[in-house]
């Protein structure tokens, strides 16, 4: 019996490792390319391990950046925008999810449909009216259009709302009833019972909201006009020119750096996906 389990484990690991290598290969290529001299990146693209190592790409990108704006600046811009937006999204989305999942209010179905519809609209078509609208508010030359809507569950809100709803609907109503008997109103139930129980959903929503905001370039393109306010997603796109040679080494180096914050957020929230929950108090 024991050997069978050991063999099973070995096969499991072999499969997982092979699969992991397959999954990772393109990313390894990208990271390795960041250590090649720029001219080699495309001309020697078949090489995984650089034949000539160049460690200056990271320095040149981080410190020199584009036209004297270092990538450290771009990264900071991306960071504060993404963190604030994620915070806003989680707060407003969880509130709305509770309303949809646990409150029977008039027109609930209608508003839910509205929320779904807002998810289905391609950004290309709403970006001009949205821009005009923010223009009217006087926000158009700032980061406000990127941050404030998040606190009202706009942009990536619906996704998070929908996600959290699904988890909330997985919590038995008996818990709510028991709490009501104990004298809790709707609000206490939300804070004390529902929220703690949907930690995996909150974690997932946070990871996604952060990553999507981090990667977004259309918002920053329209609203951040001063290059020193640009985010890293825009900065990376600005490096390549259709007429001239791109400094690929630096671009890949900075692209690799750009992965780090999202990874950190992932690590931070990952443990909530690993913890188990139990609906104790309902035994029997």
């Amino acid at each position: 019996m024991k050997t069978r389990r050991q063999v099973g484990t070995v096969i499991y690991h072999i499969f997982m490792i092979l699969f992991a290598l397959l999954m990772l290969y393109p990313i390894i290529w990208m990271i390795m390319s960041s250590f090649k001299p720029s001219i080699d990146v495309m001309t020697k693209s078949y090489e995984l391990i650089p034949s000539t190592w160049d460690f200056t790409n990271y320095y040149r990108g981080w410190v020199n950046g584009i036209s004297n704006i270092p990538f450290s600046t771009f990264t900071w811009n991306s960071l504060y925008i993404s963190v604030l937006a994620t915070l806003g999204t989680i707060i407003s989305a969880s509130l709305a999810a509770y309303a949809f999942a646990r409150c029977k209010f008039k027109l609930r179905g209608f508003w839910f449909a509205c929320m779904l519809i807002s998810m289905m609209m391609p950004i290309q078509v709403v970006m001009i009216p949205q821009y005009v609208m923010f223009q009217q508010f006087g926000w158009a030359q700032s980061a406000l259009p990127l941050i404030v809507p998040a606190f009202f569950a706009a942009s990536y809100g619906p996704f998070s709302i929908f996600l959290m709803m699904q988890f909330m609907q997985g919590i038995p109503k008996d818990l709510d009833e028991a709490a009501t008997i104990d004298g809790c109103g709707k609000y206490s139930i939300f804070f004390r019972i529902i929220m703690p129980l949907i930690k995996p959903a909150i974690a997932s929503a946070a990871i996604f909201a952060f990553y999507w905001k981090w990667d977004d370039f259309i918002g920053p393109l329209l609203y951040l006009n001063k290059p020193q306010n640009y985010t890293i997603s825009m900065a990376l796109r600005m490096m390549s020119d259709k007429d001239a040679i791109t400094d690929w080494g630096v671009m890949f180096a900075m692209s690799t750096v750009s992965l780090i914050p999202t990874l950190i957020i992932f690590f931070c929230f990952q443990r909530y996906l690993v913890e188990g929950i139990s609906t104790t108090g309902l035994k029997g």
Partner: protein
Amino acid sequence: MVRNANAAAKQPKNQLTRRSGWSSFINSENAAGYIFLAPWLIGFLVFTAYPIFASLYYSFTNLNPLKGLGKETFVGFQNYINMFTTDSVYYTALRVTFVYALVSVPLRLIFALFIAMLLNRKSKASGVYRTIYYLPSIVGGSVAVAVMWRSLWIQEGTINAVLQSIGIQCEWGWLTQPSTALMCLIILAVWQFGSSMLIFLAGLKNIPAEYYEAATVDGAGPFRKFFSITIPMLTPVIFFNLINQLILGFTAFTQAYITTRGGPMNETMFYALHLYRQGFEYNKMGYASAMAWILLIIIGIMTAIIFKSSNSWVYYESKGE
């Protein structure tokens, strides 16, 4: 609000407490519902509803961004008619997008679920694997990914090099041949299944261990457990992933924009990309808006069908057995 709850708690516990006027109002389904909904509702009305209705209005006009807003004229249904009769790329874009969405979404979900099941254990190795499988999702829509993916799939790229090293002489230009270009993008989407996997993992973690324990006590084996506990308990998450991925699949834009620009021969011309070209390269924003609304209707119908069907296959713990 917490104050009220505390005040109410001071009353005798063994009866359903009778609430006073304000407290009962604020805790009523409608009031509480709208208060919790308020942030989203305000956001929707202010930030989302206006642009959406504006785009509906524009779809009936010949808006040209270069003229500036306010100079467009009403053209009725002309944009919609043109879409179906004179746009030679439109049907290709529709077909490409349908194929992309209907192939990549199920594949992604299957991989995501399969791997999530395998990784649903508390071990250090699992943590490492989870991170590795999630990594592709976060390289997202950057220029780096486009370059990387191209260098893999072009004729002299890595894929062919690997095939040659195991003896298969392959000179096919996967990304540059019209028949296989879309496949490369589908594989790109499936490669990034990590995000769906995360959500499945979250869903799996939410299944109380007691259920499995009880099942073991009853003598159920792994397959039985999977089909009778895991899958039913996961259906809300499967449902969510399905809807979400479908919407993302139909509105996909960036991958085609940066990797293939819609070529070769329009075989990767996603609907959103064609829309973007119409609106921003040909300056026919009215027409692009009309395209968007047709897409909305298509996605809306599919979503509605899935929602309707969900009554029969999605199981919510909160709705009882």
